[in-house]
């Protein structure tokens, strides 16, 4: 029994290994959060923050899904601003941020986060179904393995930020809950 099992195991592992090394020889695709981090960087080029300085603080609130994936944008310059990524745990820290990413871990307290974000000229970004129509300005979703985003036009209007028409043109437009046409 043991012998048989060991042989089975060896065979199996070799098979797996072979396929893994073949796969490894090709170019690896970026992870979902590497792409999302890159989007956060690109958004800066299409948005005007009123009276902002030369440093643009990108905050991640709560359970951080990015990990090292934000390293690629840390310290990068976009539209003359240097990006600085920070992890925050409390809504009281929101006033330090120009952009905040709200992960799905905050689903239950999204409304209170959005209330705290009011009047702070803050770009709110999420990646959870329903976030946009609940009032988050930009919300990522996935389609055929690609990252797309939707923009809540009402929330964008309330935010005090100037968002270029170009960004709207490549996004899916949504409205606050209750105003939805579907």
């Amino acid at each position, binding site marked *: *029994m*043991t*012998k048989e*099992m*060991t042989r*089975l*195991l*060896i065979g*199996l*592992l070799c098979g*797996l*290994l072979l*396929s*893994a*090394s073949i*796969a*490894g*020889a*090709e*170019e*690896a*695709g*970026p*992870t*979902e959060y*590497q*792409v999302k*981090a*890159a*989007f956060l*960087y*690109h958004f800066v*080029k*299409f948005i005007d923050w009123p009276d902002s300085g030369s440093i643009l603080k990108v905050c991640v609130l709560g359970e951080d*899904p990015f990990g090292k994936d934000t390293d*690629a*944008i840390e310290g*990068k310059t*976009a539209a003359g601003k240097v990006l600085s990524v920070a992890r*925050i*745990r*409390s*809504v*009281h*820290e929101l006033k330090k941020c120009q952009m905040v990413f709200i992960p*799905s871990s905050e*689903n*239950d*307290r999204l*409304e*209170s986060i959005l209330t705290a974000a009011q009047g702070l000229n803050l770009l709110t970004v999420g990646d959870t179904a329903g976030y946009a129509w609940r009032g988050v300005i930009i919300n990522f979703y*996935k389609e055929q*393995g*690609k*990252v*797309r985003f939707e923009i809540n036009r009402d929330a964008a209007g309330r935010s005090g930020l100037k968002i270029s028409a170009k960004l709207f043109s*490549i996004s899916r437009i949504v409205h606050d809950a209750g105003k939805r046409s579907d």
Partner: protein
Amino acid sequence: MSEPTRNSAASAALAAVVGVLIILCVAASEARASQRDLTQISIEELLDVEVYSASKTVQKTTKAPASVTIVTASDIRKFGYRTLADMLRSVRGFYITYDRTYHYVGVRGFARPGDYNTRILLLLDGVRLNENVFDQAFIGNDFPVDIDLIDRVEVIRGPGSSLYGSNAFFAVINVITRRAKDFGGVEVSGEAGSHETYRARLSYGDHFANNAEAVFSGSHFDSRGNRRLYFSEFDEPGQNNGIAEGLDSEKTARAFAKLSFSGFTLLAVYSRWQKETPTAAWGAVFNKEILSMEEHALLDLKYETTLAGDLSLMWRVNYNQHPYHSHTPYDYAEPGGPPLLVTNNDLSRSRWWGTELQLNRRLFGRHDIVAGAEYRDNIQQDMKNYDIEVYTLSRSNSRIWAVYMQDQFNILDNLVLNAGIRYDHYSTVGSTANPRIALIYSPFGQTTFKLLYGTAFRSPDAYELHYEAMGYRINPSLKPEKIRTYELVWEQQIGDSVRGTAAVFSNKIEDLITLTTDPDDFLVFRNVATVEAEGIELGLEGKWESGLTGRISYTFQETKDRDTGNILTNSPRHLAKINVSIPLLREKIFLGLEEQYAGKRKTLRGLDAKASYVTNATLFSQRLVHNLEASVSVYNLFDFRYGDPGSEEHVQDIIQQDGRSFRFKATYRF
């Protein structure tokens, strides 16, 4: 200790495979192409980048139709957990009994002596791990996967038969393994601890083009154990004055592979564990080696895909085998004659394969439907016991099919009705249907109430149905035992940092399968006892900006046999736990402190195992030097002397637990 040679050959082969594997894997990782800079392309191009498969959406615990606790990989590191049992000790309402062979989990005041964890369902990435002869779930060093490969453990309290079928009686424990992304290359880990305990692990995990990912790992655990264990029950000159010398060793070899490719996930797990039993259980000769071996091999292929729109499909097929073997020395001497030592062999062979299809769909905007069907074929459920002649030879097999459905009806944004039912058909004991209903209401954003009702069953296992050794008689009319549970849970977010939970529960277990003795002294399993349990659980969990985290919980429970009115054995009235992780140097050095209290527990002989206070401390550092993680742990810091109640097979009424012990561990990522 004379280990059969075929085992050492198998171990050597295993070691060789792991070694070769790791070399090749390192080579593969070197060959990986560097990634392009996504900030240097246009936003339109970025929209066209195909990404590596996303994490499956995990249900928020506040939306789950149960009271759920999650223990994470971070907890494993910060509190120095060595086994799944260590993790479960920290969970509200759970307690562990260790008889120096197996670890047994008690839930909400229920831990029957002699119950091999048959009343919890243990899953690995959703695959059932309870074997099919004794229905045993293994949670100590006999758990088939190395603890460092665990991403998180989801403990779902209450009956889960409406989705999972048999054994999901008190809780479902789903162990989820780390993804390839969490490794990002090679990981090496080693540890050394008291009682000459060593562990070494080599793992490799990474993701590649076309959404492919792979994880491979091999590890070895070896412990001499406590070299001198004193048992007063055997304190006689002829019995080495009650000292079991060098009879507590333990060894585990494990191999793990997980490969994902465009919707398919292949999981392969192998483990081989052996433990010496120093307690002279089952009437064995004292201070002689009793050796138990458990082996588990699992192969699971899962396919997940999204069909039209919001319809998603999961299909899986798996094969498991779990042989068990133990050697026990008996003295068959004539009264007054010279000793006649004979080694008794106890064996079981457990093999099964199963398949499951599950569909998820959102309907009419407000209904999330889960529907599925499962088939399991227990190809082999054999037991054997012999020293020279065969005492027991029970060969059996059985088949199970089941269908289930669950509807999460989002009535309002803050009101959810979750209803599910599962119908199981057993070729051995017939059919059973088990519903679960949960009403989840959030009157305010910060407050959630859950009202839960459910039933669950446990079908008699092959051992209870077919074991016919000397002294045992088969009961052909044995049927499943049933549990009915009511629970009210209140979850409250307090400020930004603290979350509170209060739960009141009531369990009623009927037709409990119990080993009884007939007037002619034969042992027979019967559906006799009715047990009622009531209790309250309180928990607070906090996470602060500074990195400070903590959990504190208290459980009061009363578990009674309805006919006698007596509190059950091994059922503490009070349980309290505190876990605090203090950042000493932000993000880098943490002090993890853990305190576990269990009230006194009644033993089989009507005595009390005294209340226990166990304190564990772990100093953990990460990223101080490059990718090195290191920790020092002290378990049972104050060397508190306590014991767990023994079972029917023990002469000892109370089995002494370990005093203070130490461990040093280091992990490095390349």
